[in-house]
């Protein structure tokens, strides 16, 4: 007999919403997350021991978070939600047994069982490679934001924020507010693409307000914002010293800086879903129906893993998943939840617009800046030259073969970071790797794990 009725993997907006909604209906939930606190990336908490008295300065949705946090605390006190922090889920077996490594040390594993599962595994940043991107000082925009929120630290003194996507504005604003000299924000997107979809913006006025707020903030700090500008190269010998940015007319200029916060959008974490056999969409997200159900019985998914779309959409999807799980566990159909469904519809439409407007430059354009010496696979240090050779001379026609022939994607991150870059340079579709461990697992832990089919979990 399973220990819990519902397990929720991931305590970001989607996971928290799913857990709270299910618990509201009386379901016994276990909520797991790898961080010490709930919140995921969007509501990433400043470490408790830093005693931030004005945390809202780093968050634009602080009151919303406070409400979620308080509801979570109440359900934890009542015992309906068990929150397991510091749990790094490395595998979920069908039925479901959730195996998680404990703590930052990750030397021991724990297994929890549940009748049903919600995957709210979130997303991570896509960065398309460019010469010099492996220099210390070059990091993801979200990474700069995460380090700032959690540890109250800045990556350096003078930052350039570049790439494309809705994340660049809040990251630049956060860095500027925290005292960094932000030399500029360079987004490769074309603002005219937004004008084409003005109706979507009108239907989502809060997004306009949010964007305008960040832009005004940056203006106050004297941070220039430039569109249709592309990051072309990072310079430095042992660390970042400057970047080169290309203007729309193709001319380039060099900006001295010690930090480059770069992002080209987000990618979903789908490994756990894949290993369970859940179908993915043709854009690589977990496929779900109107109730956020996957094609695996009693397996739901919500949030960025089902399609990148931001925190508010994740909350709506999580709520729908939680409501559906609660009903289905009791053998009934979920009651209609018009508000959440309307929110989901509206924000999904907006996400599609965003996706189009903020689409990174096509591979033919960005790969032109990638010379043969540029490292594509950061973990295994595989260069663009090796990847090109695998395609042109060694008969590689897909990402798997490129990986076999060059080792690109075989390192610690298992291709998560280099997938888009290698696929772009190789000219093949980006197919998700199938690892099947979501985290590296010590052999000793693997040897001791008991499969769900053998009875009592360890």
């Amino acid at each position, binding site marked *: 007999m399973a220990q819990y009725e519902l397990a929720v993997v991931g305590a970001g907006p989607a996971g928290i919403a799913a857990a709270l909604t299910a618990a509201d209906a009386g379901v016994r939930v276990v909520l797991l997350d790898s961080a010490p606190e709930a919140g995921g990336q969007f509501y990433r908490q400043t470490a408790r021991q830093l005693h931030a008295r004005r945390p809202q300065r780093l968050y634009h949705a602080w009151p919303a978070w406070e409400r979620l946090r308080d509801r979570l605390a109440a359900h934890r006190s009542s015992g309906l939600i068990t929150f397991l922090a510091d749990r790094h889920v490395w*595998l979920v*077996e069908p039925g479901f047994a959730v195996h998680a490594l404990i703590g930052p040390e990750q*030397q021991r594993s724990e297994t929890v069982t549940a009748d049903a599962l919600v995957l709210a595994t979130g997303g991570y940043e896509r960065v398309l490679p460019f010469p010099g991107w492996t220099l210390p000082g070059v990091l993801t925009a979200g990474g700069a934001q995460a380090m700032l929120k959690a540890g109250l630290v800045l990556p350096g003194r003078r930052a350039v924020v570049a790439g494309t996507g809705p994340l660049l504005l809040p990251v630049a604003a956060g860095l500027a507010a925290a005292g960094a000299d932000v030399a500029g924000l360079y987004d490769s997107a074309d603002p005219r693409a937004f004008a084409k979809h003005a109706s979507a913006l009108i239907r989502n006025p809060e997004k306009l307000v949010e964007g305008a707020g960040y832009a005004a903030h940056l203006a106050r700090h004297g941070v220039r914002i430039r569109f249709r500008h592309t990051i072309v190269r990072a310079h430095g010998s042992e660390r970042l010293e400057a970047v080169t940015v290309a203007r729309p007319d193709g001319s380039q200029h060099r900006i001295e800086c010690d930090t480059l916060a770069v992002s080209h959008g987000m990618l979903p974490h789908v490994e756990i879903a894949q*290993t369970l*056999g859940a179908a993915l969409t043709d854009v690589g997200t977990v496929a779900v129906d109107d109730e956020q159900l996957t094609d695996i019985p009693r397996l739901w998914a919500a949030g960025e893993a089902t399609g990148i779309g931001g925190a508010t959409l994740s909350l709506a999807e999580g709520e729908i998943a939680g409501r559906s799980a609660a009903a289905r566990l009791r053998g009934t159909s979920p009651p209609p939840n018009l508000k959440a469904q309307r929110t989901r519809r509206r924000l999904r439409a907006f996400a599609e617009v965003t996706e189009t407007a903020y689409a990174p430059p096509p591979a033919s354009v960005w790969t032109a800046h990638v010379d043969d010496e540029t490292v594509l696979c950061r973990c*295994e240090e595989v260069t663009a030259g090796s990847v090109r050779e*695998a395609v042109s*001379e*060694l*008969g*590689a*026609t*897909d990402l*798997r*073969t490129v990986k*076999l*022939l060059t*080792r690109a994607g*075989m*390192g*610690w991150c*298992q291709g998560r970071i280099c997938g888009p870059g290698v696929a772009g340079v190789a000219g093949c579709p980006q197919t998700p790797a199938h*690892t*099947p*461990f979501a985290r*590296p*697992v*010590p*052999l*000793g832990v*693997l*040897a*001791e*794990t008991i*499969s769900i*089919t053998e009875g009592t979990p360890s």
Partner: protein
Amino acid sequence: MDLQSEGCDLAIIGAGMTGAACAWYAARAGGRVAVLDRGAVAGGTTGAGEGNLLVSDKEPGPELDLALLSTRLWRGLAEEPWFVAASAEYEAKGGLVVASRPDGLAALEAFAEGQRRAGVEAESVSASGLAELEPHLSPELAGGVYYPQDAQVQPARAAALLIRDAQRQGARLHTRTTVTALIRGSDGRRVEGVVTDRGTLRASWVLNAAGTWGGEIARLADVHLPVLPRRGFVLVTEPLPRLIRHKVYAADYVADVASSSAALQSSAVVEGTAAGPVLIGASRERVGFDRTFSLEVARLLAKQAIELFPALSQVKVMRSYLGFRPYMPDHLPAIGPDPRAPGLLHACGHEGAGIGLAPATGHLLAQVLTGKTPDLDLSPFRPERFEDGAGA
């Protein structure tokens, strides 16, 4: 539409290691060769193995003879300048088979004695000798046998390099090209080429090197080749310094290979690679083409690896992959012309030994194709043997 308007002498179906080796030897012998694959180079089992080039796990008989020839040929290939320059992680590291108990050791010794008589170099190793050869090996083992002729290579890369060199000799490669039918002669039996989704290709000979899918290709010629998949998982660790110097495996591995059981067979095979990660095998199951991950198998492989190398307990596994070995009922591959379908040759069903046996397979077939007497008697490998009831 023609793939190659001039046709070719030999059309090879399958760009895995076997197809690659056959292409290389045939091209070297002056043949006009075309290699076709529905996917990429090394898209099948070649991309899912460990790169075992072994004589140690084979009992005296035709397969061992093939392996002895092949392992010599591998050494030659590994010295070719084009191979050396491009690095396929070839290492003539030798294999060490270990037994945990005295009775197992005695059986291993007896087995090795038979192998020695067949031409295999096999050196007995005492328990203390084991520690010298492999300092991190468990001190609880009874002893073992060291096989200096065993070696290791990175299979996908080696296959790609062989094909590239064959292309330099004029061979053509057609990836993403699926063979849908064979061109038959007017007698309805003779095979005269292939029909693909990208056009036809006339060929004097067609070679079935489709590995685990060899039975499907045979069916296109209306002949039966009983190749079945035998699933195997491999665990891959984080990159490590050279902890493990040889290919090390437990003596019961040989029994597993020889077993006809469909149920899970598993015994430890552990080795380091030039790139750093340690590879841990080896499991065998007949579960069709089921690609579902099995935690049960992974657990067993981990446990068995730690029994051999306790220090591996702290080492992290980064990923696991699976492959389908092409298994034949008598554990011997099908190599040679098919009398049931003149013009068709087979080179498939090498089970877990395909990487190691590929050069010999290619070399022998090239001899057949050029009218020479093959260096080994190919009758144990005749593709039609399952119909005359004598293959066992």
